[in-house]
């Protein structure tokens, strides 16, 4: 299974997601990318991220996304 950084790289290949602590402030993800990422995470991990969780603070960096996934029972993403 792809790592989180690899999944992000598929959405935005021009950026290095391991080098940023705030993807949104750094302009690496926009709102459309965020929804694309949610769909990718849902499909990859067989979960359904709820609407209330689709907020910027959950998509700031690799750690916050991993934290969101843990909430849905996905460990070690």
């Amino acid at each position, binding site marked *: 299974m792809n790592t989180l950084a690899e999944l992000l790289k598929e959405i935005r290949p021009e950026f290095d997601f391991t080098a940023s602590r705030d993807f949104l402030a750094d302009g690496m993800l926009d709102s*459309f990318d965020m929804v694309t990422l949610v769909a990718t995470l849902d499909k990859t991990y067989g979960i359904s991220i709820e*609407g209330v969780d689709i907020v910027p603070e959950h998509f700031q960096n690799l750690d916050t996304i991993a934290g969101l996934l843990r909430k849905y029972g996905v460990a070690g993403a």
Partner: protein
Amino acid sequence: MNNPISGLARASPMHLVESVSEVGAAVNRAKQGSLAYCSNFFPVTRNLENWITHRELFLQERDGVSFFFRKDRDFLHLYFCAASLALLQRAIANSPTLGSEPVVLDLVGKESALGELLGLFEGAGFRIHNRLFRMARLVPSVPRPADKEANSRVAVADKSDGQPIVDLLLRSFDRHAEQIPMLYEIEAAVAAGQIWVVRDGGVLAGLLFHETQGLTSTLRYWLVAPQFRSQRFGSWLMHRYFEAHPVIRRFLLWVVAANTDAIGKYEHYGFAPEGLVDYVLANENILP
């Protein structure tokens, strides 16, 4: 024409949205537990706050689907959140607003992924009004050389430019397809230094409006009024834009697919299609 949506909240079973959390809750209700969620709603919190403050955003829930309607002058933008295409299809058929009000919606994504949604809305009486695609210019972090002429003729827009900018945008673009900002949005962009202009004889001749966030900058509008073309005003604006953003790695824009003249100009500046398309659909209450 009379404003057909002035009594919107009264005429239809929908209500004015009064908080961002209300939006999140409605999205959540529509999405709950679904692995086949479909939506064209990609809200930016700042935009949501503006729409709510200006009483432009309405919510209607039908058959488990959340429809958001954003009032834009004399028509509505439709955003939907549905747990599945089947639920969406049923809700569209049962929504009184979609049959009685002038409505447009955007379907954004990879061309290959939009077929089912397009068919669903066309089956419900919508037609393709326009098609746009996104272009990107990916650049290394190297500053461009300064263009002295551009620097001397291009100015940051000021408050007095607000209404002339709105008027020029409305004259120049497809208002149903190209998300023409309201005056309050232009005034905020002017205050934030996001709009550059070229004036000729005191008249607004051209403008460039961008939104920049971190390493990405989106070119929202770039135009020169017809009577001022072929005087390099457009070139000065673009050079000034690139020169002022030496660290940007990705420039983005949306362009109408049939506008070959504009596409050629963007290609000249290094933009290329990046695979996203935007189908703008309109119902029968929007005249072709």
